[in-house]
């Protein structure tokens, strides 16, 4: 029997997760405005942390719970892929310099209780045990042992690699038009599909009322003199700054959060803030090589919560804000489960 036809608009993080969940049962056509597969959308730049508890400080409890659910789904998705993608669950370490202790206390007070997730208060000695290279630098911290992260660059590559071998057609770097005909059929570029999954992120701004971009800037560095076993968050007066260790001594240092639609290059101020924060955590970052400095737009609605909407055979999944990796598998599963899974 011929498989039903599904179009996926946008091949960023959400589009990939949807494609992985659908490729066995459907014939997929994947449309992406960017000219190539592996550097599009906020998901390509992100640190890909899976930190439901740390994020619970700034999001509603149900969103954090959704993050817990997604953590259980990631290993299954990654197991489909033809090449290994680092998935780590060694917790998150949160530290603060002496002058920012007030922020650390307030962070600790605002952690929301999540089933199966516990926060541990750490002394300087505890920190040294977890992260030997940070010994003597911090006297207090918080450890969220159940959190994790993954290697998003490897995920981007491996998911493309897999889908290329499956029943998927790819259209990169082309403009595409989403329409409905008089019978409420959903069409992309005049071709009728059984379902269209709109995962365009900020690219869907014109169609989705209330969607806005929240600018984020990140640095990616190669620091052979630094070894960290897990993502480290540093309390900062303006943004939560994190340093997420990726394979081969690469680190993602992020991220600013600016209410702006500007996706132009990173500013000097943001670069200085991010890199100096990293240097204050570990002086080994002084000799690190800057591999990339990036800026992108996180798609967000005014309540900063993800939104799924269904309209005549078009399912739109958007507004994952700063919680793309944290939420994508759970949100996409929720969006597809009624009609497609």
């Amino acid at each position, binding site marked *: 029997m011929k498989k039903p036809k599904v179009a996926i608009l946008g091949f960023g993080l959400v589009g990939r997760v949807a494609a992985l969940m659908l490729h066995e049962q459907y014939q997929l056509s994947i449309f992406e405005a960017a000219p190539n597969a592996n550097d599009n959308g906020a998901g390509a730049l992100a640190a890909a942390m899976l930190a439901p508890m740390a994020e619970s400080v700034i999001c509603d409890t149900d969103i954090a719970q959704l993050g817990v659910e997604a953590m259980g789904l990631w290993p299954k998705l990654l197991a489909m892929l033809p090449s290994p993608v680092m998935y780590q669950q060694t917790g998150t370490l949160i530290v603060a310099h002496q002058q920012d202790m007030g922020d650390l206390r307030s962070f600790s007070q605002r952690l929301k209780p999540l089933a199966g997730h516990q926060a541990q208060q750490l002394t300087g000695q505890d920190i040294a045990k977890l992260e030997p290279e940070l010994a003597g630098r911090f006297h207090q911290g918080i450890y969220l042992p159940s959190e994790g992260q993954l290697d998003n660059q490897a995920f981007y590559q491996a998911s493309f690699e897999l889908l290329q071998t499956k029943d998927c057609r790819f259209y990169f770097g082309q403009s595409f038009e989403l329409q409905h005909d008089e019978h409420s059929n959903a069409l992309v570029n005049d071709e009728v599909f059984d379902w269209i999954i709109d995962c365009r992120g900020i690219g869907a701004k014109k169609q989705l009322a209330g969607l*806005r971009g929240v600018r984020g800037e990140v640095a990616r560095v190669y620091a052979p003199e630094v070894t960290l076993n897990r993502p480290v968050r540093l309390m900062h007066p303006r943004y939560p700054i994190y340093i997420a260790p990726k394979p081969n001594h690469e680190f993602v240092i992020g991220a600013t959060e*600016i209410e*702006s*639609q500007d996706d132009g290059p990173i500013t000097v101020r943001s670069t200085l803030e991010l890199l100096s924060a990293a240097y204050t955590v570990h002086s080994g970052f002084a000799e690190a090589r800057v591999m990339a400095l990036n800026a992108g737009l996180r798609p*967000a609605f005014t*309540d*900063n*919560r993800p939104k799924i909407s269904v309209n005549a055979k078009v399912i739109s999944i958007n507004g994952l804000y700063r919680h793309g990796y944290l939420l994508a598998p759970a949100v996409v599963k929720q969006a597809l489960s009624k009609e497609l899974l």
Partner: protein
Amino acid sequence: MRDDKPLNIYGQRFESRLLIGSALYPSPQVMQEAIRASQSQIVTVSLRRQNSVSAGDDFWQLIKDTGLTVLPNTAGCHSVKEAVTLAQMCREVFATDWIKLELIGDEYNLQPDPVALLEATQILLSEGFKVLPYCTDDLVLCQRLAALGCEVLMPWGAPIGTGKGLLNPYNLSMIRQRLPDMTLIVDAGLGLPSHACQALEMGYDAVLLNSAIAGAGCPVKMAKAFNHAVQAGRAAYVAQAMPEKDVAAPSTPTMGMPFWHQSN
């Protein structure tokens, strides 16, 4: 009892004595709800270089949707030139000649630079801006700013975002006494509604705050609390407090009480 006049900012009158900031909320939706709950009539907005009019229009639209008078600020500026340029950009973007002039002298404390502030104020006033300088609680600095022609001054209660309240009530009350006709707004450092109440009781015309509401567990409830506190403080100022005394004075006359002497 004192006269109760509305808040006067460069000739414009306002009923609410709470000016509210637009940063650091958990989401723009919470910001809008908190602003409504505060019953503020003036909202401060900071313009970053990355928000050109077209680029930043979404967030700007959300602010406009509140229907409040916008007070742009020069947050994050460290030099006279930067502040003047940003003020000029704000005038274009927000179509207002009001500017909350913020010029940081110390990066960590975010303490205003008094020397640069005077220079920038002079330039901006000469360019027709209505300047609301954010300054420290130094009387002489406030007098100098007044002499330049400022009609509103905004001394700090404590450093921005600390929530410590009025660290130096003596300085603040001295500024109030010595500049009796100036519109004075305590800006920054407040954490609790009681801090705002205290400033208004002291005769300050208004308070400006952001983190105390945006950083609260429930910003909307806290916005309401501040609204009440500001009203209470103002009413107390207008009503005039009883004089403070060192010796107890009974509030119930003891004459005619049959057993009054038994307590001896």
